[in-house]
């Protein structure tokens, strides 16, 4: 566990909490959005919200890849999984995401062959092991997971695996951040930039945030000390009157990103003209599709897909939550109609979703707010 424990060090954390306290002292209230679902999860998992001064609020952004998949695409995945002879492989947390009518977990119970894999390469291995089946990998995620899907597509082509294909739902991080910045009523004071995505794309793609919108952005890691340091760096920029793109996660993230991974992405994917995001609607050039050279491994080209758009449930305010306009518990159905057992919106499904994270880990704060210690 080395390389993790030092970033959970209580002494370092307390020093940062004290620093945050003094930086926030006498300043106006600050609202920072953590873009990435991994950050949201870590913030609740380690009780970080309970340690921040009341004037510093974390707003949970759209960076949970499971949460932003629209219901119509889940229905498409279920339709694919229900084709005779098809084996659908997906990541574990896609299983419970509700489509228009059901989930992949229910499709499995009804006889569809749906299997949880930990890597797209596992799905390719299943295809090679079971040549009689059509194996489809349900690809989701930002630029973090897209390179592993790209490598898998390249290996499928190299090895001539013809019974394997990819149902691509990869999305990109910059367009939704821009959409949030352009949305009316946006009241953020800065961004905690995503860590894992940035290992691939680097920090340069965020420069428009500082340049065009005058807001600071700090790319941060996922351990408590990383997040606290990221918040302190944001506060320091604001106190100094600066707005820059800074990198707290230097041990992993290079400014230019991972050039090898970016090159592979370019070889395998093309950018879709537009893609629907749950709660955010259609965003131009925000998603990836397999390019023409990989058409033979593109499930959308090989199978009949219903492609029916399903409107988000009226009561669900996932979009407002994803934009940071309301907090999870301010949603009309939070905790009543929408719970982790019966999620209406996808923010409640994945443990990275802002609503599920708050429901699982954060409720305590709302009931009995712990006084902030600056020890």
């Amino acid at each position, binding site marked *: *566990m080395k390389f993790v424990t030092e970033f*959970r060090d209580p002494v370092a954390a307390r020093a940062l909490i004290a620093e945050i306290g003094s930086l926030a002292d006498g300043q106006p209230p600050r609202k920072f959005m953590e873009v990435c679902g991994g950050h949201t999860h870590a913030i609740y998992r380690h*009780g970080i919200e*309970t340690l921040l001064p009341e004037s510093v609020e974390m707003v949970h952004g759209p960076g949970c890849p499971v949460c932003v998949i629209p219901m119509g695409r889940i229905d498409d995945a279920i339709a694919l999984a229900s084709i005779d002879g098809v084996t659908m492989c997906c990541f574990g947390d896609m299983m419970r995401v509700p489509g228009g009518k059901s989930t992949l977990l229910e499709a499995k119970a009804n006889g569809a062959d749906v299997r949880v894999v930990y890597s797209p390469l*596992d799905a390719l291995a299943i295809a090679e092991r079971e040549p009689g089946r059509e194996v489809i990998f349900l690809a989701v*995620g930002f630029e973090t997971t897209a390179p592993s899907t790209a490598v898998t597509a390249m290996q499928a082509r190299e090895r001539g695996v013809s019974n394997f294909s990819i149902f691509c739902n990869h999305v990109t991080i910059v367009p939704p951040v821009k959409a949030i910045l352009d949305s009316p009523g946006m009241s953020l004071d800065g961004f905690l930039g995503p860590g894992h995505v940035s290992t691939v794309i680097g920090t340069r793609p965020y420069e428009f945030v500082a340049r065009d919108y005058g807001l600071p952005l700090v790319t941060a890691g996922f351990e408590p000390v990383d997040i606290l340091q990221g918040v302190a760096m944001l506060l320091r920029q604001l106190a100094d009157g600066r707005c820059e793109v800074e990198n707290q996660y230097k041990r992993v993230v290079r400014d230019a990103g991972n050039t090898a991974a970016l090159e592979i992405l370019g070889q395998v994917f093309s950018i879709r003209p537009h893609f629907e995001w749950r709660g955010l609607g259609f965003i131009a050039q925000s998603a990836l599709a397999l390019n023409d050279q990989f058409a033979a491994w593109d499930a959308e080209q090989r199978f009949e897909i219903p492609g029916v758009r399903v409107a988000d449930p009226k009561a669900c305010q996932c979009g407002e939550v994803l934009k940071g306009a309301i907090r999870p518990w301010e949603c009309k159905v939070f905790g009543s109609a929408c719970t982790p057992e019966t999620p209406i919106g996808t923010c409640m499904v994945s*443990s990275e979703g802002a609503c599920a994270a708050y429901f699982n880990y954060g409720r305590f704060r709302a009931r009995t707010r712990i006084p902030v210690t600056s020890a």
Partner: protein
Amino acid sequence: MTTQDERDQVLERIEQWKLRPSRLTDDVITMAHGAGGKASQSLTEAVFKAAYGGPQLDRLDDGAVLDIPSGSRVVVTTDAFVVTPRRFPGGSLGDLAVNGTVNDLAVMGATPKWLTVSAVLEEGLPIDELRDIVGDVASAAGAVGVEIVAGDTKVVERGAADGCYLTTTGVGLVAAEQRLGAEHVEPGDVVLVSGTIGDHGMAVMLARGDLALEADISSDTAPIHSATAALLDAVPSTRWMRDPTRGGLASACNELSVAASLGVSLFEDALPVKPPVSGACELLGLDPLYVANEGKFVAVVPADTVDVALDALRSTPVAAEAVAVGEINDEHPGMVVAHTPFGGSRIVDMLVGAPLPRIC
């Protein structure tokens, strides 16, 4: 033309053959072994009775008659075991089937005495594997000193079950004055854990082999009755015990907080987790608090008995690493809250559905 004498000899031979114990010559389980005829009988004789026969089981009556000492109360529990794979680092289906039920009795404060074993076998199961499983049942029962007094075998068609399922029912005895229960838990009481958490769940998850992860993690499957007995002996005022199997320590504490209408505070830096287990959990996005244990228990004792309780627990090999991990309060009834080492806190809720690894 045969003489009367010769005919008598033939009849005698047939009689002798009928009296001979039936022999099991098959290699795999077939539907015949569940049909109740000679094949069933031979399986019972050659596999089950051979492994754990005893005065009660050998009678092959429809039920066992148990002698209960006067003044004792009887505790009964039952559990089904369907683990995949059936053999994993640190244990097997047979070990689990005995230890799981023995441990349920132990945390009720009972001395485990008798077990019944019911097996559902899938057509095609190699009989050698069944012998191994049943052998593990016998040795685990022998280690605890429980007698297997009744059993049943059913065979289902290929595909209708996954190899072998075992159900064990356990009967134990508890002293008349023994009082354990969530209703006795009070604010200020201390929560103890008998050792490291998460070992079994991670061992089984890795043994399934679809994670492409290798780590030196063994299941903790073990009977805990000696440790629960030592604790009850040293601290008769022990309030409540539970073995945190599926759903892990988090679920056990949630059940306690609801049943007692009190809050449970856990201190994260006190939770004992082996480094490979916490590393594997970290990689898979799982929380060791929710991962299954099979040789551990959680106990609540009055605050002024903690040292005595820990000394008693640590004197038994199965609870040598026992520690205090939390306390009971009346500040957040029905809720379990974990305190992070640097002063943060979070709710530890019941698990919803199966623990699914996170994407990134």
